[in-house]
Protein backbone atom coordinates (compact mmCIF):
# COMPACT_ATOMS: atom_id res chain seq x y z
CA UNK A 1 0.00 0.00 0.00
CA UNK A 2 1.08 3.56 -0.61
CA UNK A 3 2.50 5.67 2.20
CA UNK A 4 1.97 9.40 2.76
CA UNK A 5 5.34 10.90 3.64
CA UNK A 6 4.06 14.32 4.57
CA UNK A 7 2.67 17.58 3.31
CA UNK A 8 4.20 20.82 2.09
CA UNK A 9 2.51 24.17 1.78
CA UNK A 10 3.60 27.28 -0.03
CA UNK A 11 2.21 30.45 -1.50
CA UNK A 12 1.97 30.26 -5.30
CA UNK A 13 2.30 33.91 -6.30
CA UNK A 14 2.82 34.35 -10.07
CA UNK A 15 5.70 36.79 -9.51
CA UNK A 16 7.63 33.89 -7.93
CA UNK A 17 7.57 32.14 -11.32
CA UNK A 18 9.09 35.21 -12.92
CA UNK A 19 11.71 35.51 -10.16
CA UNK A 20 12.75 31.88 -10.71
CA UNK A 21 12.84 32.44 -14.46
CA UNK A 22 15.16 35.43 -13.97
CA UNK A 23 17.29 33.78 -11.27
CA UNK A 24 16.52 36.37 -8.57
CA UNK A 25 16.78 33.97 -5.59
CA UNK A 26 19.58 35.98 -3.95
CA UNK A 27 18.10 39.40 -4.70
CA UNK A 28 17.49 41.29 -1.41
CA UNK A 29 13.72 41.44 -2.03
CA UNK A 30 13.44 37.72 -2.76
CA UNK A 31 16.07 36.13 -0.50
CA UNK A 32 13.94 36.01 2.72
CA UNK A 33 11.32 34.13 0.72
CA UNK A 34 13.60 31.67 -1.10
CA UNK A 35 15.49 30.98 2.15
CA UNK A 36 12.41 28.98 3.19
CA UNK A 37 13.10 26.23 0.66
CA UNK A 38 16.54 24.56 1.15
CA UNK A 39 15.23 22.40 4.03
CA UNK A 40 12.33 21.34 1.82
CA UNK A 41 14.76 20.43 -0.96
CA UNK A 42 16.87 18.36 1.44
CA UNK A 43 13.78 16.51 2.73
CA UNK A 44 12.61 15.76 -0.80
CA UNK A 45 16.09 14.51 -1.79
CA UNK A 46 16.13 12.23 1.25
CA UNK A 47 12.63 10.78 0.80
CA UNK A 48 12.17 10.90 -2.99
CA UNK A 49 8.36 10.74 -3.27
CA UNK A 50 7.00 8.76 -6.25
CA UNK A 51 3.80 10.79 -6.48
CA UNK A 52 2.80 14.36 -5.70
CA UNK A 53 -0.82 15.33 -5.08
CA UNK A 54 -0.90 19.04 -5.81
CA UNK A 55 -3.90 20.78 -4.22
CA UNK A 56 -4.31 24.27 -5.67
CA UNK A 57 -7.02 26.65 -6.84
CA UNK A 58 -7.36 27.47 -10.51
CA UNK A 59 -7.46 31.23 -11.18
CA UNK A 60 -9.12 31.31 -14.58
CA UNK A 61 -7.14 29.02 -16.86
CA UNK A 62 -8.50 25.49 -16.44
CA UNK A 63 -12.01 26.61 -15.48
CA UNK A 64 -14.29 29.55 -16.17
CA UNK A 65 -17.59 30.60 -14.62
CA UNK A 66 -19.55 28.70 -17.29
CA UNK A 67 -18.75 25.49 -15.38
CA UNK A 68 -17.15 25.89 -11.99
CA UNK A 69 -16.43 22.65 -10.12
CA UNK A 70 -16.15 22.89 -6.35
CA UNK A 71 -13.63 20.02 -6.31
CA UNK A 72 -11.92 18.85 -9.50
CA UNK A 73 -9.35 16.07 -9.85
CA UNK A 74 -7.07 15.71 -12.86
CA UNK A 75 -6.93 12.26 -14.44
CA UNK A 76 -4.62 12.94 -17.37
CA UNK A 77 -1.33 11.44 -18.58
CA UNK A 78 0.27 14.87 -18.51
CA UNK A 79 -0.48 18.45 -17.53
CA UNK A 80 0.57 21.55 -19.41
CA UNK A 81 0.69 25.11 -18.23
CA UNK A 82 -0.72 27.53 -20.76
CA UNK A 83 -0.79 31.26 -21.40
CA UNK A 84 -2.64 32.97 -18.53
CA UNK A 85 -2.63 36.29 -20.32
CA UNK A 86 0.38 37.95 -18.74
CA UNK A 87 3.51 36.23 -19.82
CA UNK A 88 4.66 33.38 -17.57
CA UNK A 89 6.98 31.12 -19.57
CA UNK A 90 5.46 27.92 -20.93
CA UNK A 91 7.09 24.70 -19.72
CA UNK A 92 7.32 21.09 -20.88
CA UNK A 93 4.42 18.95 -19.60
CA UNK A 94 4.30 17.58 -16.06
CA UNK A 95 3.88 13.78 -16.02
CA UNK A 96 0.53 12.59 -14.64
CA UNK A 97 -0.52 9.44 -12.80
CA UNK A 98 -3.98 8.61 -14.16
CA UNK A 99 -4.23 5.22 -12.41
CA UNK A 100 -3.70 6.95 -9.05
CA UNK A 101 -6.12 9.72 -10.06
CA UNK A 102 -8.87 7.21 -10.80
CA UNK A 103 -8.16 5.34 -7.58
CA UNK A 104 -8.62 8.61 -5.67
CA UNK A 105 -11.79 9.47 -7.60
CA UNK A 106 -13.31 6.02 -6.98
CA UNK A 107 -12.48 6.12 -3.28
CA UNK A 108 -13.69 9.67 -2.71
CA UNK A 109 -16.98 9.29 -4.56
CA UNK A 110 -17.59 6.12 -2.53
CA UNK A 111 -17.01 8.30 0.52
CA UNK A 112 -19.71 10.66 -0.81
CA UNK A 113 -17.50 13.46 -2.13
CA UNK A 114 -18.87 14.60 -5.48
CA UNK A 115 -15.88 15.00 -7.77
CA UNK A 116 -15.42 16.52 -11.21
CA UNK A 117 -12.93 14.33 -13.07
CA UNK A 118 -10.76 15.96 -15.75
CA UNK A 119 -8.99 14.00 -18.49
CA UNK A 120 -7.69 17.29 -19.81
CA UNK A 121 -6.68 20.10 -17.49
CA UNK A 122 -4.50 23.12 -18.19
CA UNK A 123 -2.66 23.97 -14.98
CA UNK A 124 -1.95 27.55 -13.95
CA UNK A 125 0.58 29.20 -11.63
CA UNK A 126 -1.24 27.77 -8.60
CA UNK A 127 0.00 24.31 -9.65
CA UNK A 128 3.23 25.21 -11.44
CA UNK A 129 4.96 27.66 -9.07
CA UNK A 130 4.99 25.23 -6.09
CA UNK A 131 6.45 22.51 -8.33
CA UNK A 132 9.21 24.91 -9.40
CA UNK A 133 9.86 25.89 -5.79
CA UNK A 134 10.10 22.33 -4.47
CA UNK A 135 11.72 20.62 -7.50
CA UNK A 136 14.06 23.22 -9.03
CA UNK A 137 14.00 23.04 -12.81
CA UNK A 138 10.58 21.35 -12.76
CA UNK A 139 9.38 19.45 -14.63
CA UNK A 140 12.94 18.69 -15.82
CA UNK A 141 14.14 17.58 -12.38
CA UNK A 142 15.36 13.95 -12.18
CA UNK A 143 13.37 13.45 -8.95
CA UNK A 144 10.14 14.92 -10.37
CA UNK A 145 7.28 12.73 -9.12
CA UNK A 146 4.22 11.96 -11.23
CA UNK A 147 1.42 14.35 -10.37
CA UNK A 148 -2.26 14.39 -9.51
CA UNK A 149 -3.71 17.93 -9.53
CA UNK A 150 -6.70 18.72 -7.33
CA UNK A 151 -8.34 22.13 -7.72
CA UNK A 152 -10.87 23.64 -5.33
CA UNK A 153 -13.04 26.63 -6.14
CA UNK A 154 -12.08 29.86 -4.42
CA UNK A 155 -12.95 32.09 -7.39
CA UNK A 156 -16.69 32.29 -6.80
CA UNK A 157 -18.74 32.05 -3.61
CA UNK A 158 -20.10 29.82 -2.23
CA UNK A 159 -16.68 28.28 -1.64
CA UNK A 160 -16.28 25.13 0.48
CA UNK A 161 -16.29 25.49 4.25
CA UNK A 162 -13.09 24.96 6.21
CA UNK A 163 -14.62 21.84 7.72
CA UNK A 164 -15.41 20.45 4.29
CA UNK A 165 -11.86 21.15 3.17
CA UNK A 166 -10.40 19.30 6.15
CA UNK A 167 -12.84 16.41 5.65
CA UNK A 168 -11.93 16.30 1.95
CA UNK A 169 -8.31 15.90 3.00
CA UNK A 170 -9.18 13.08 5.40
CA UNK A 171 -10.97 11.19 2.62
CA UNK A 172 -8.05 11.89 0.28
CA UNK A 173 -5.64 10.46 2.85
CA UNK A 174 -7.75 7.31 3.13
CA UNK A 175 -7.76 7.00 -0.67
CA UNK A 176 -3.99 7.41 -0.93
CA UNK A 177 -3.22 4.91 1.83
CA UNK A 178 -5.38 2.28 0.09
CA UNK A 179 -3.60 2.63 -3.28
CA UNK A 180 -2.28 -0.88 -3.96
CA UNK A 181 1.30 0.02 -4.80
CA UNK A 182 4.44 0.30 -2.68
CA UNK A 183 4.78 4.03 -3.31
CA UNK A 184 5.60 7.19 -1.44
CA UNK A 185 3.30 10.18 -1.74
CA UNK A 186 3.67 13.83 -0.80
CA UNK A 187 0.66 16.17 -0.63
CA UNK A 188 0.94 19.88 -1.45
CA UNK A 189 -1.41 22.61 -0.25
CA UNK A 190 -0.73 25.80 -2.18
CA UNK A 191 -1.88 29.41 -2.00
CA UNK A 192 -2.32 31.96 0.77
CA UNK A 193 -1.62 33.25 3.22
CA UNK A 194 -3.44 36.56 3.84
CA UNK A 195 -3.88 38.84 0.83
CA UNK A 196 -6.48 40.85 -1.00
CA UNK A 197 -6.10 42.00 -4.60
CA UNK A 198 -9.44 43.74 -5.15
CA UNK A 199 -11.41 46.66 -3.80
CA UNK A 200 -10.60 49.61 -1.57
CA UNK A 201 -9.15 47.08 0.89
CA UNK A 202 -6.57 45.86 -1.68
CA UNK A 203 -3.22 45.29 -0.01
CA UNK A 204 -4.75 43.96 3.20
CA UNK A 205 -2.44 41.56 5.09
CA UNK A 206 -3.08 40.09 8.55
CA UNK A 207 0.02 38.77 10.28
CA UNK A 208 -1.74 37.91 13.53
CA UNK A 209 -4.36 35.77 11.81
CA UNK A 210 -1.74 34.06 9.62
CA UNK A 211 0.26 33.15 12.71
CA UNK A 212 -2.88 31.70 14.31
CA UNK A 213 -3.48 29.60 11.19
CA UNK A 214 0.15 28.46 11.00
CA UNK A 215 0.10 27.33 14.62
CA UNK A 216 -3.19 25.50 14.44
CA UNK A 217 -2.74 23.86 11.05
CA UNK A 218 0.09 21.91 12.69
CA UNK A 219 -1.37 20.99 16.06
CA UNK A 220 -5.13 21.55 16.03
CA UNK A 221 -6.63 21.83 12.54
CA UNK A 222 -10.08 20.99 13.95
CA UNK A 223 -10.04 24.35 15.75
CA UNK A 224 -9.75 26.09 12.37
CA UNK A 225 -13.00 24.49 11.17
CA UNK A 226 -14.84 26.89 13.50
CA UNK A 227 -13.85 29.80 11.25
CA UNK A 228 -16.76 30.70 8.98
CA UNK A 229 -16.13 31.47 5.32
CA UNK A 230 -17.05 35.14 5.75
CA UNK A 231 -14.75 35.35 8.75
CA UNK A 232 -12.02 33.88 6.55
CA UNK A 233 -12.65 36.59 3.91
CA UNK A 234 -12.63 39.24 6.61
CA UNK A 235 -9.47 38.08 8.39
CA UNK A 236 -7.39 36.54 5.57
CA UNK A 237 -8.51 38.87 2.77
CA UNK A 238 -10.67 38.08 -0.24
CA UNK A 239 -7.97 35.90 -1.84
CA UNK A 240 -6.68 34.59 1.49
CA UNK A 241 -9.49 32.05 1.18
CA UNK A 242 -6.82 29.96 -0.57
CA UNK A 243 -6.06 28.74 2.96
CA UNK A 244 -8.67 26.09 2.18
CA UNK A 245 -5.94 24.27 0.19
CA UNK A 246 -3.82 24.08 3.33
CA UNK A 247 -6.78 22.56 5.20
CA UNK A 248 -7.26 19.94 2.47
CA UNK A 249 -3.57 19.04 2.60
CA UNK A 250 -3.62 18.84 6.40
CA UNK A 251 -6.58 16.49 6.48
CA UNK A 252 -4.69 13.95 4.37
CA UNK A 253 -1.79 13.70 6.83
CA UNK A 254 -3.59 12.18 9.82
CA UNK A 255 -3.52 13.38 13.42
CA UNK A 256 0.18 13.19 14.29
CA UNK A 257 2.66 15.26 12.32
CA UNK A 258 6.14 16.65 12.93
CA UNK A 259 6.97 20.14 11.77
CA UNK A 260 10.23 20.05 9.80
CA UNK A 261 10.44 23.66 8.67
CA UNK A 262 8.41 26.86 8.55
CA UNK A 263 8.90 30.23 6.87
CA UNK A 264 6.75 33.35 6.85
CA UNK A 265 7.52 36.60 5.06
CA UNK A 266 5.68 39.87 4.30
CA UNK A 267 5.34 40.87 1.52
CA UNK A 268 5.95 38.95 -1.66
CA UNK A 269 4.00 40.79 -4.32
CA UNK A 270 0.69 41.58 -2.50
CA UNK A 271 0.83 38.54 -0.25
CA UNK A 272 2.00 37.25 3.11
CA UNK A 273 4.01 34.22 1.97
CA UNK A 274 3.99 31.08 4.09
CA UNK A 275 5.83 27.77 3.76
CA UNK A 276 5.43 24.73 5.97
CA UNK A 277 6.72 21.15 5.79
CA UNK A 278 4.95 18.57 7.94
CA UNK A 279 6.09 14.97 8.15
CA UNK A 280 3.65 12.17 8.91
CA UNK A 281 4.26 9.80 11.78
CA UNK A 282 5.97 6.70 10.32
Amino acid at each position, binding site marked *: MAQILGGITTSHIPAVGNAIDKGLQDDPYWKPFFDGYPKVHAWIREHKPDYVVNIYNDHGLGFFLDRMPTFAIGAAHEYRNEDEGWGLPSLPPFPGAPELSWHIIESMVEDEFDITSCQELAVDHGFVVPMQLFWPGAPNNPDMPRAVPISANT*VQHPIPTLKRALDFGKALGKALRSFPEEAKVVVLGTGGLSHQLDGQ*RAGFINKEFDQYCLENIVSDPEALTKISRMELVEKAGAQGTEFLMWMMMRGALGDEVTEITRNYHIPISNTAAGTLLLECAA
Partner: protein
Amino acid sequence: MAQHSHDYHIDIPGTTVFDGRMAMKGYALNKMCYDFNRAENREAFKADPEAWMEKYGLREEQRQAIRDNDILAMIEEGGNIYYLAKLAGIFKLSVQDVGGMQTGRTREEFQAFLASQA
Protein backbone atom coordinates in the same frame (compact mmCIF):
# COMPACT_ATOMS: atom_id res chain seq x y z
CA MET B 1 -35.77 30.34 2.66
CA ALA B 2 -34.45 33.16 4.81
CA GLN B 3 -31.24 34.56 3.38
CA HIS B 4 -29.65 34.89 6.78
CA SER B 5 -29.44 31.11 6.91
CA HIS B 6 -26.45 31.43 4.58
CA ASP B 7 -22.97 32.61 5.36
CA TYR B 8 -22.68 35.44 2.87
CA HIS B 9 -24.27 38.55 4.24
CA ILE B 10 -21.76 40.40 6.34
CA ASP B 11 -20.36 43.78 5.44
CA ILE B 12 -16.60 43.84 5.02
CA PRO B 13 -15.61 47.41 4.14
CA GLY B 14 -13.74 47.73 0.86
CA THR B 15 -14.53 44.15 -0.09
CA THR B 16 -16.98 42.78 -2.66
CA VAL B 17 -17.79 39.12 -2.09
CA PHE B 18 -17.92 37.60 -5.57
CA ASP B 19 -21.05 35.46 -5.24
CA GLY B 20 -23.77 34.32 -7.62
CA ARG B 21 -25.27 37.81 -7.75
CA MET B 22 -21.99 39.37 -8.87
CA ALA B 23 -21.22 36.41 -11.15
CA MET B 24 -24.49 37.02 -13.03
CA LYS B 25 -23.89 40.74 -13.27
CA GLY B 26 -20.33 40.38 -14.51
CA TYR B 27 -20.61 37.35 -16.78
CA ALA B 28 -19.98 39.08 -20.13
CA LEU B 29 -17.11 41.17 -18.73
CA ASN B 30 -15.49 38.17 -17.09
CA LYS B 31 -15.93 36.04 -20.21
CA MET B 32 -14.19 38.64 -22.33
CA CYS B 33 -11.33 38.80 -19.82
CA TYR B 34 -11.07 35.00 -19.53
CA ASP B 35 -10.68 34.83 -23.30
CA PHE B 36 -7.63 37.12 -22.99
CA ASN B 37 -5.78 33.92 -22.10
CA ARG B 38 -5.35 33.69 -25.90
CA ALA B 39 -2.89 36.09 -27.47
CA GLU B 40 -4.99 36.62 -30.60
CA ASN B 41 -7.88 37.87 -28.45
CA ARG B 42 -5.59 40.30 -26.64
CA GLU B 43 -4.44 41.63 -29.99
CA ALA B 44 -8.00 41.95 -31.27
CA PHE B 45 -9.01 43.93 -28.18
CA LYS B 46 -6.01 46.25 -28.52
CA ALA B 47 -6.80 46.82 -32.20
CA ASP B 48 -10.43 47.82 -31.59
CA PRO B 49 -11.62 47.79 -27.95
CA GLU B 50 -15.11 49.06 -28.75
CA ALA B 51 -15.79 46.35 -31.35
CA TRP B 52 -14.42 43.67 -29.01
CA MET B 53 -16.63 44.83 -26.11
CA GLU B 54 -19.61 44.84 -28.48
CA LYS B 55 -18.82 41.28 -29.57
CA TYR B 56 -19.04 40.09 -25.95
CA GLY B 57 -22.18 42.11 -25.23
CA LEU B 58 -20.80 44.17 -22.34
CA ARG B 59 -23.24 46.53 -20.63
CA GLU B 60 -22.58 50.23 -21.16
CA GLU B 61 -21.46 50.63 -17.52
CA GLN B 62 -18.90 47.89 -18.05
CA ARG B 63 -17.62 49.46 -21.25
CA GLN B 64 -17.30 52.85 -19.55
CA ALA B 65 -15.37 51.32 -16.65
CA ILE B 66 -12.90 49.87 -19.16
CA ARG B 67 -12.64 53.14 -21.11
CA ASP B 68 -11.95 54.92 -17.80
CA ASN B 69 -9.45 52.25 -16.67
CA ASP B 70 -11.46 52.22 -13.42
CA ILE B 71 -10.85 48.93 -11.60
CA LEU B 72 -13.27 49.68 -8.74
CA ALA B 73 -16.03 50.35 -11.27
CA MET B 74 -15.24 47.08 -13.05
CA ILE B 75 -15.62 45.25 -9.73
CA GLU B 76 -18.87 47.10 -9.02
CA GLU B 77 -20.00 45.87 -12.45
CA GLY B 78 -19.35 42.24 -11.53
CA GLY B 79 -15.75 41.91 -12.63
CA ASN B 80 -13.77 39.24 -10.80
CA ILE B 81 -10.17 40.20 -10.03
CA TYR B 82 -8.71 36.94 -11.36
CA TYR B 83 -10.16 37.66 -14.82
CA LEU B 84 -9.59 41.41 -14.61
CA ALA B 85 -5.90 40.60 -14.00
CA LYS B 86 -5.75 39.36 -17.60
CA LEU B 87 -7.06 42.72 -18.81
CA ALA B 88 -4.49 44.46 -16.61
CA GLY B 89 -1.84 42.26 -18.23
CA ILE B 90 -2.64 43.75 -21.63
CA PHE B 91 -1.65 47.14 -20.22
CA LYS B 92 1.43 45.63 -18.50
CA LEU B 93 0.04 46.53 -15.07
CA SER B 94 1.29 44.55 -12.07
CA VAL B 95 -0.91 43.66 -9.09
CA GLN B 96 0.81 46.49 -7.21
CA ASP B 97 -0.22 48.92 -9.94
CA VAL B 98 -3.78 47.59 -9.72
CA GLY B 99 -3.67 47.83 -5.91
CA GLY B 100 -2.52 51.43 -6.12
CA MET B 101 -5.21 52.32 -8.66
CA GLN B 102 -7.89 51.02 -6.29
CA THR B 103 -6.57 52.67 -3.13
CA GLY B 104 -5.47 56.05 -4.49
CA ARG B 105 -1.76 55.30 -4.12
CA THR B 106 1.15 55.29 -6.51
CA ARG B 107 2.76 51.93 -7.10
CA GLU B 108 5.60 52.87 -4.74
CA GLU B 109 3.18 54.03 -2.04
CA PHE B 110 1.23 50.79 -2.37
CA GLN B 111 4.41 48.72 -2.08
CA ALA B 112 5.39 50.67 1.04
CA PHE B 113 1.93 50.01 2.49
CA LEU B 114 2.38 46.27 1.91
CA ALA B 115 5.81 46.27 3.56
CA SER B 116 4.47 48.28 6.52
CA GLN B 117 2.37 45.27 7.54
CA ALA B 118 5.38 43.01 8.11
